[in-house]
């Protein structure tokens, strides 16, 4: 029987960060709770926040359930997490600068050349080009799970365009509206500066050819995209234009935005469009979402693109295994945050181990996301395990396996009252001229009893995440 770390109760005693929440919890009768829950739902619907977290699929108009029970970190816990997150974000960016430059980490034999140079996310078009300020991944979303008071593991890195930060901001907003007393009783560090910090980060990587105040825009694939709400929300908060490909055009050495007052030069593009679609003259020629000629302007220093095309090679599931190695290689430090031990089914020894221990492991597709197509050994029937064994044998390269982690739980409102449910954590680290992290994150919660899968497409919800002041 696995025991799980409960973030609120330690052997029946309330852990410090949750001290002031116990009374709040006890004093909330079921009727009030139901009323508040309905109120929260109405607020979310009114705002229109109904999108799925990046790549999770599912109905884009479905509301992701919001759990009112906050998740809490002490200042000390957060300080350590913050150091670990920033360390990792820094190493990932140094890795990208290296593999598009001299490739020292490959030459040193610390990561196989094949994993980097034959990777589909490695963009030949930007080899040798150094993006403004040398930054490739400007928003690094790092997915973490906790297994004990001081034990955190990184599940995966998101170096391209991690989404979900609007939930972090909205969850806080709604909690403050519904429970203002809680915010008087607890000293909770604010997260509302995120949008301004994001804008500053983006403006700080304006290209050399930009003189004066940089014009930043947010490039969205359009309203049919599942994260469109977040795109418009962030553009609005930052006070920058939300544009689609057709609103921008290339002329001469620059990218321009059509406006009613004539064309305006654009200096920084925060794009929420995948590499393959951003410029039909460089990548997929059939893309209607991008801006023809954008990559030539970018590579001749006329505009900055965030994240930099090609940044995806750092967040590949196979490259993930080597991130601790990156931290040691580039920073000469020991990683503060651990990776989950990972077996590559493409390697004979690893495959044997995986097949021998299948009922205990979690197996994922290398390029999969959203909790689809994965096996959670301990939660599966014998038949499901055997069926999955055949899938792995059919294409071993396509699978990685990890031990089933004992994800921490936090108290969560459920139909029967309050019960522990498993959670993960996605902080959003900003990398520009400097590196920055707001004291907060998105907490996803597996609402099904016993479930370890927090993805919204698999019945996951979200929570407000507090970091207490010292």
């Amino acid at each position, binding site marked *: 029987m696995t025991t799980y770390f409960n973030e609120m109760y330690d052997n029946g005693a309330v852990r410090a960060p949750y001290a002031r929440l116990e009374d709040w919890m006890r004093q909330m009768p079921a009727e009030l709770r139901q009323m508040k829950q309905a109120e929260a739902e109405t607020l979310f619907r009114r705002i229109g926040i109904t999108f799925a977290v990046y790549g999770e699929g599912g109905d884009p108009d479905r509301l992701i359930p919001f759990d009112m029970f906050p998740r809490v970190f002490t200042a000390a816990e957060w300080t350590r997490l913050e150091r670990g997150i920033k360390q990792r974000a820094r190493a990932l960016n140094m890795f990208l600068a290296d593999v*598009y430059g001299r*490739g020292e980490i490959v030459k040193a034999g610390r990561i196989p*050349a*094949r994993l980097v*140079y*034959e990777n*589909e996310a*490695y963009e*030949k*078009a*930007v*080899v*040798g*080009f150094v993006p403004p300020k040398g930054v490739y991944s400007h928003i690094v979303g790092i997915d973490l799970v906790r297994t004990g008071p001081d034990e955190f593991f990184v599940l995966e890195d998101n170096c391209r365009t991690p989404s979900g930060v609007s939930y972090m901001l909205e969850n806080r907003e709604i909690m403050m509206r519904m429970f203002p007393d809680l915010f008087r009783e607890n000293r909770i560090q604010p997260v509302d500066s995120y949008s301004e910090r994001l804008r500053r980060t983006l403006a700080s990587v304006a290209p050399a050819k930009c003189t004066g105040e940089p014009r930043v825009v947010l490039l969205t694939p359009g309203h049919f995209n599942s994260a469109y709400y977040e795109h418009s929300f962030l553009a609005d908060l930052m006070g920058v234009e939300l544009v689609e490909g057709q609103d921008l*055009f*290339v*002329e*001469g*050495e620059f990218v321009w935005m059509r406006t009613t007052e004539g064309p305006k030069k654009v200096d920084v593009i925060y794009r929420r469009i995948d590499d393959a679609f951003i410029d*039909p*003259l*460089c990548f997929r*020629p059939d893309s209607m979402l991008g801006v*023809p*000629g954008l*990559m*030539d*302007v970018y*590579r*001749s*220093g*006329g505009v900055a693109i965030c994240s930099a095309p090609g940044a995806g090679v750092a967040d590949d599931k196979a490259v993930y295994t080597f991130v601790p190695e990156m931290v040691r290689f580039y920073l000469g430090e020991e990683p503060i945050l651990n990776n989950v031990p990972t077996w590559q089914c493409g390697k004979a020894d690893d495959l044997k181990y995986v097949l021998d221990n299948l009922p205990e492991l979690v197996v994922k597709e290398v390029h999969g996301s959203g909790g689809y197509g994965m096996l959670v050994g301990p939660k599966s029937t014998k038949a499901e395990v055997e069926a999955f064994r055949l899938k792995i044998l059919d294409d071993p390269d396509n699978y990685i396996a990890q031990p089933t982690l004992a994800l921490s739980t936090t108290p969560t409102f459920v139909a029967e009252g309050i019960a522990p449910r498993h959670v993960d954590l996605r902080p959003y680290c900003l990398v520009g001229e400097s590196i920055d992290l707001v004291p907060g994150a998105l907490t996803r919660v597996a609402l099904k009893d016993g479930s370890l899968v927090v993805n919204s497409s698999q019945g996951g919800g979200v929570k407000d995440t507090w970091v207490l002041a010292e």
Partner: protein
Amino acid sequence: MRLTVDHVTCYRYAAPVRGVVQSHRLTPSVFEGQTVLDWKVTVTDGLQGGSFRDGAGDRISAWSVIGPVSEILVQVTGTVDTRDLAGVLRGHRETVRPEVYLRDTLPTRVDTALIDLSEAAEGADGPLEAAHRLSAAVAEAIAYRPGVTEAHTTAAEALGLGEGVCQDHAHALIAIARHRGMPARYVSGYLFADAEGKAHEAAHAWAEIWLPGLGWVGFDPANACCPDERYIRLSSGFDAQDAAPIRGIARGPGAETMAVRVAVCTQGQQQEQQ
């Protein structure tokens, strides 16, 4: 050999378009096999954008045309001194690692017939001989015949047809070389074909295979040889689309038609013509 190039591409739009944006790789590569004496690219009413050398060593130049416009001409003229290096791309500066060119793309994906074809290299004495054998196998399996294949034909389809043009030969050779773990890429350029030569178009394409000790070496299955002093190299890529000397797009609904005229002559020939 001193070669002169006169290459005109004419784009016509059924209805005037609001603007045109192009990305050119129309400048001869810099390596020991060719020296540019003069070279000029013009675009009707074109506004030149950024120009830079990319990681593969190609000179990329951006152009835009402000509309309304219903016809533009892209004119390339120049003179290049060439040397026969037996296909070896000596002295070419590039930073993209050869392994990058092991990745397949849709037109260069192998099927069982291509895998069978790749067995031509079985038992070869070293990679150089293997590459020659692969090139010869492609030349034998795909006969030169224009009009059978089109721009989107894949290597597998061309092999199935048994006929094609230089693009199909290059794709097939790239596919089977990569299948054998040899980095391979597509090259666009010009070819001077004299009176006795086969009637290939002067706008030409071939493949390069990376060989240990030699680096990138060109192979032209369409002419069953390695590029020599009759060839001018412009650009490279994973496949024809990725290596295209001109990629462009027009803003506006007007249907586009394109006409190309390319002449590659020796200095002597040109004087005779005058």
